Structures are given as C-alpha cells and as structure tokens.
C-alpha cells in the first residue's frame, strides 16, 4: 500500500479501487433483490433490495467503527506501557541491573517500540553507557531485520533505519544510503540525502550535491534546513553551484544563502547581476548583503537599480540600505519619486531611511516637495524606522 501512495500510477490505482468497490456494491444490491423475488414490480423489488443493503451496510459500518476505535485505544495504551517498560529495562541494563537476554527477548516481540526507545537512548546517552546500548542494539533481532533484503522497501522502516544508523557508527550506513537514494518514495530519498550530507562518505555527498537542483522546491527547502553546519561542505557546495553554467545550480546556491542568512565567505561572481534569468538576478540582490565585501559593490548595485525588471530594482534598493552604500543616494531618491511601481519606491525610501544622516535629510526634503503618493511612501518609511528605534530602545 505504501508503494501505491507514492506511485505515479496512484490515480489509476485509486480509480480502479473505486470502480471495484462500486461494482461490489451494485452486485450486492442485485443479489439482494433475489430475496424479494415475490415482489412483482421490479422498481419496488430493487428499491427493497437497495434499502436492505443500505441498512446492512449501516449496521456493519457502525460495528466496525466501534470495534476499530476500542482496539486502537487498547493497542495505543499497550504500546505506551511497553515503551515505558523498555525505558526502565534499558536504564537497568545501563547500570548493570537488568538482564540483556530479557531485553532482547522483548525486542524480538515488540520491534517497533524497541527501536524507538533505543534511538531515544542512543541520542541521550554518552560514554560507556552508550557503548553498552549500542552493543545491545547491534545484537537485537529488530536491528538485523532492518537489513533483511527488501526490508528497506517500506517507507516507515526505511525512515526508521535512516534515523538509527547514523547513531550506530558506519558499519551498515553506506550500503543503506546507497539503497535509500534509489528508494521509490521521495520522502525516503530525501531523508537519505539529508543523512548522506551529515554522515555519508565524500562520494555520497557529491552525489547529493549534484542531485539538489533537480529536486522539487519543497524538498530543496527541507534539505537546506537540514544542511549540516560544516563550513568545508558548505563552501564546496556553494563554490560548485555559484560558478556553474547551469541556472538551476546557481539558483540553488542563492536559495541556500537566503535560507541560511549567514555571511558567505567565498567570493560570489558579479556576473550573476547580468544573468539572463530574472530569478537569479532577484535572488542575487536579495542575498547581496550576505556576500563578503568586494570592490565592485557600487557598480553592481548601480546596475541593479537600472535593471529592466522592477523586482530586481526593488531588491537592489533594499540591498543599498542593508550594505549602507551612501554613494547611490541620488539614484535612490530618483527611484522614490519616479519609480514605476510602488514596491520599488517603498524599498528605495526604506533604504534611504536605513542609510540615515544625509540620506534621511534629503528624503524628508523630497517629502516636502512631492505629490501625495510619494509623500505617503516616505511617511510610511520614516514611521517604520521610528518604530524600529522605539523597539530597540525598549
């Protein structure tokens, strides 16, 4: 069933299922009409059959619902109490008070609870206690079952092993990562990619780097969030992507920078400001304040302020405020009074307010001589700044 959920034939599968159920339903009504063979009028006969089937279904549904809920509640209670039992046994084992055989015996019977509690213990324990726990897990039946051929095919099991394996050293990790990367479920593939970045070999990491631009947007967001805080790995990824001739790779690098909001230590090519892809130019200027300073800042920002795309112009204006570039005050003032869209005018006004001093003074002068729209835009920007200052003072 799991595989069907992620299959690209899902629509066909679900459609067939619906047709099948409906077919069974109609057949039941037809079969039930035989019970009313004595009724001459076929309309009434089928109506009676229909009502009988409905009544039977209603009773059946209610019975199933009640039994399901009762058994589910019971199973959940049992599972909870088993988890508590495991926790106590594991704690006992760590201090040498419980028998390993007993825990392993229980683990064989209740693998899910065992693996969950073992994962929790491995994450919280340290030193010799952790070593003892690690050896317990490696000896257990549920652990070896995780690597039985075909076991990784279930999404849940695959996710469970991917969360457990990095905690247990690298013995089986590489082979699990290899099979995880080709798993039919996108969630498992993504979890494998995240684990690979964190603790995979150099080869597996490179494979993941290459795959990022081809991932759907929601998967990329997740991968950026889970990207390990490893400066070498980050630099390697950014360097490869930023200087690539492939737009998708460049976009990924910029998305990564925006997502992490940290200063980028490697030089970012100025040529991105000339990219033919507006998305790249927008993101390039959006993250501009995060690049380490370089000589061409002024010319790059000037180019941005005169870009054909208003979104690029707006982002460049924002960047001027964030990098405190006073040399572009006249251009920003011009943008406030003559911008084609209110968004870029607002960005420019905010940038001027952020620059402070002379820029702020000139902006207020402009407000005195401008028309209503510009007047309102400047008033908004000044007001926002006052609020920020008030908040800072608090």
């Amino acid at each position, binding site marked *: 069933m*799991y595989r069907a*959920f*992620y299959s690209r034939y*899902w*629509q066909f599968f*679900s459609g067939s*299922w*619906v047709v099948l*159920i*409906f077919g069974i*339903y109609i057949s039941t009504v037809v079969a039930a009409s035989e019970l009313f063979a004595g009724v001459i009028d076929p*309309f*009434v006969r089928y*109506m*009676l059959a*229909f*009502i009988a089937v*409905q*009544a039977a*279904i*209603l009773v059946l*549904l*209610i019975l199933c*619902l*009640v039994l*399901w*809920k*009762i058994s589910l*509640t019971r199973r959940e209670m049992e599972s909870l109490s088993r988890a508590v039992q495991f926790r106590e046994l594991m704690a006992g084992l760590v201090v040498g008070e419980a028998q390993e055989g007993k825990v392993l015996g229980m683990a064989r019977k209740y693998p899910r609870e065992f693996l969950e509690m073992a994962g929790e213990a491995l994450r919280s324990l340290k030193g010799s206690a952790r070593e003892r726990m690690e050896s317990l897990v490696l000896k257990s039946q549920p652990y070896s079952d995780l690597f039985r051929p075909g076991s990784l095919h279930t*999404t*849940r099991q695959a*996710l469970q092993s991917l*969360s457990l394996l990095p905690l247990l050293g690298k013995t089986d990790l590489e082979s699990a990562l290899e099979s995880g990367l080709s798993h039919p479920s996108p*969630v498992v593939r*993504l*979890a494998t990619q*995240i684990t690979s970045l964190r603790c995979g070999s150099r080869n597996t990491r490179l494979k993941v780097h290459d795959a990022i631009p081809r991932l*759907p*947007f*929601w998967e*990329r*967001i*997740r991968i*950026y*969030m*889970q990207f390990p805080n490893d400066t070498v790995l980050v630099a390697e990824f950014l360097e490869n992507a930023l200087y690539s001739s492939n737009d998708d790779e460049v976009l990924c690098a910029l*998305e990564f920078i*925006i*997502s992490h*909001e940290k200063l980028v230590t490697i030089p970012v090519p100025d040529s991105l400001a000339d990219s033919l892809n507006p998305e790249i130019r927008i993101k390039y200027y959006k993250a501009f304040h995060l690049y380490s300073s370089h000589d061409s800042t002024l010319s790059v920002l000037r180019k941005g302020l005169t870009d054909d795309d208003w979104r690029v112009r707006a982002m460049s204006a924002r960047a001027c405020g964030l990098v405190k570039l006073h040399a572009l005050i006249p251009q920003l003032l011009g943008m406030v009074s003559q911008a084609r869209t*209110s968004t870029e005018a*607002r960005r420019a006004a905010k940038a001027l307010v952020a620059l402070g001093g002379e820029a702020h003074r000139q902006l207020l002068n402009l407000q005195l001589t401008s028309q209503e*729209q510009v007047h*309102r*835009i400047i*008033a*908004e920007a000044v*007001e926002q700044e006052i*609020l920020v200052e*008030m908040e800072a003072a608090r």
Partner: protein
Amino acid sequence: MKVTIAAFFHAYENSVLVYLLALNTIYFILVLVGFLELIRCRYIALDRAKLGSIERSNLLPPISILAPAFNEMASIRDSVRAMLNLRYPEFEVIVINDGSKDQTLRELIVEFHLYKSARYFDSTLKTARLRGIYESMDPIRLVVVDKENGGKADALNAGINVAQYPLICAVDADSILEEESLLKVVGPFLEWPGEVLAVGGIVRIANGCTVSGGRIENIDLPKSWIARFQVVEYLRAFLGGRVAFSSFNCMLIISGAFGLFQKAAVLAVGGYSTKTVGEDMELIARLQQWARRQKKKQKIVFQPDPVCWTEAPESLKVLKRQRRRWQRGTIESLWAHRAMFGRPRFGALGLFAFPYFVLFEMFGPVVELTGYLITMIGLLLGFFGTREAFLFFCAAVLYGMVLSTASVILEELTMRRYPKVRNLLILVLAGILESLGFRQVLAFSRAYAFVEIFKGNKSWGNMERKGFQGTVAS
C-alpha cells in the same frame, strides 16, 4: 382523470427517487475517492513530518492574513491573538473592521496598542471609504484597516489592497486557526510552485471545545444536537466531497472561513465580487474560468489537514438564516458562471463539477422537498399505499445515514481528532438523526433561498456569536 393524476404522482415520485439515487451514488463515489486520498495524504504527511519542520525557512513565501470583522467584539481579541501565534516565518495579520457598530475597533486598539499609521497602499480594488489604518506599537505584525461598511467581499478587497505579501489568507475573524495551519496550507504552493492559485483548508466546529488564549486546548463535541448535526455535515462535506473534487482538480468552492490565495491571481480577476453573498464560491469559479482561459497548468487544491475552528450557530433560527444565505450565494455564483455548464473546454469542471453543483446543490433541496410533498399528498389522496410511501422515505434517508456514518469513519481513519469512543458514537447517532427531520428543515430553508432571490434580498442577516471563552457555548 384520477388515473392520470395518480400516474403523474407515481411518475414524479419515481423520478425523485431516481434523482436521489443518482445524488447519493455520486456522494458514495466522492466519499470513496476521498477516503483513498485522505489515507494517502495522512501517510505522506506523517512521513514528511519525520524530516523535520520547515517553519524557520526564509524561502517560504510570506503571507498576509485577512480577517474581515463586523461586530466581532466578543471574540476578536482571542481570534487575533491566535492568528499572531501561528507558526510561520513571515506573515502579517490584517483585520478589516467593516464599519462595526460595536466596540470591535476599540477592543483592538486597547488590546494591541494600535496607533493610526501612515502605511502606504495601492487602491487597486475599489472599496468603500477607508477611515484609517492602524498598526501596533508592539513588535507584532498586526494591521487594522478601519473602513465604512461595505460587506465581507468589500472588506476582503480592502485587505487585499493593504496586503504586502504575495499570498493572502482569507479567514473569518470569529475563527481560530491551529498553530501549524499556515505551514500546512502553504504546502501545495511549495509542491507545485507557480501552478497553484488557491488552497482551502478544513473548517471544523469549535462548539464544545475548550479554548484558552486563542488556542483549542481540548477537543470535544458540542452538547447541542443542532451543533452536533453540523459537525457531521462539515465532515461529510469536507472529507468526502472536497477531497474528491480537489483530486479531480475541479474545486468550485473554498470556504470563506479559511483559504490561501495567490494575490496576483486574485487581483488579475478583479478581487472578490461585492454583488453576491457567496463571494467565496464566486471567486473560485472566476479563478477557475480565468485559469482555463489562460490555458496554463493551474490548480485549486483542498488540503484536509490544516484546520480552522469556527463557532456554529446553535439556534435553528440563525442556522436557517445562514443556510439561506449560503444557498443564495451558491445560486448567484452558479448563475453568474453558467457559461461553464457542460462545456468540454472547462474539462472535469465544466462536465462534472459544475453540473453536479447545479443539479444537486442548487436544485437538490427543491427536488427533495417536492418529493416529500407529493408523497404526502399522494398518501392522503390514496394514490399511494403506506408501503410505497415508507419505501420512498427509507430510500431517501438511509443513503444519507450511511454516508454520514462513512464520513465519521473517514475522520477516524485519517485525522482522528475526536479521542473518545463516546464521541464517535454520538457522531454516528447525530448522522442518523440528522436525516430524520433536521435535513428536511434545512432543505426547506435552502429552497426558500430561491424566493429570496426573486424578492431581490441581498442581506447577510445577523449572526449572533458568543465568542471563544473557556468551553465554547453549546
């Protein structure tokens, strides 16, 4: 003569029976499709949750939440607080005070330390006159738009004008969004970037639940049977119908209580229409029509997981008024977009969803009521025997009972919001009892909406709210 009349009565009753059978068969199929989609959504969501949250990502598109408020003094503080507590990296809450006659604006000013701000906005959509825009002196992203009364659609349009972000989330000011609602409802926009025009979430009934600090602390069923019937109705409509329509990409309605829209698309179609009381449905119909004309691959999606809790009316009088208004909205929207009816160029929307809404949602109550009426008259005049009348009644109500029970099962197998066995039994019972009187009363109110349309009634009617304090009154 008598024979001819009797034949007419029989023919009419049989036609109504066939109609009811067709309607319920479609429901049956929708519930089946919904069931499969829900199970799939649940497992995929659970699996994704294991990958960790994305709530801190700067790449999530920022959202402007629009909450039109008209005389919402009782619940506005809790609702706004709940909205401000939502988990999402970047969002602003825009409350539009639509000329309230009570102290709604005053409550907001005092509670959230508002000042009259100089916020700039483009008046792209025409609205009633704005009296002022207020923002908070506290570090919260709250904007209050004070305007003259112009109706919900007009208030939403004013909110769209003031909104700064590319996604707008329309919510009712008397509703409570769950903390993760925005993170969940934005999912389709991330999954199919550039393709999604709107996403709707599920609306559930808060009566009976314990609310504290703008959050649902404990989920329980209402004590009033009228509210319980509505719980089942909502489950049936959202978990059965909308999930299935969404999987065929032919959604015609996203609840006005909770929907996320691409602002650019809403502006492109001219915002909400102020000429109908069913502005939510009308906007979706217009977006669908616009998208089909653009010939781009675009979707309008229903997400069963993000939840918005709302207070349901517990008085029959208020409920009937609400249903009459909904029905008027449906009729007006369908009439305005009648060009889509049966047109292959609109795909599943024109060939299936639109005819379904016209034949079963619009005319359903009239057909059902006339069926009952003909049966009763036929029984009195001796055209039918009691057995035939009984058969008609059973056939008309039993299918509905099965579907209600099936939606309770859907809820239990997928979302599992009601923790106790007792809750489920009450819901099943409500699903059975609902068909024995309640549904017929509401069908009468809905049918009366046609009369109101002919009379030219455009009013919303008064909705009495008790507010979210402690256990929501029931």
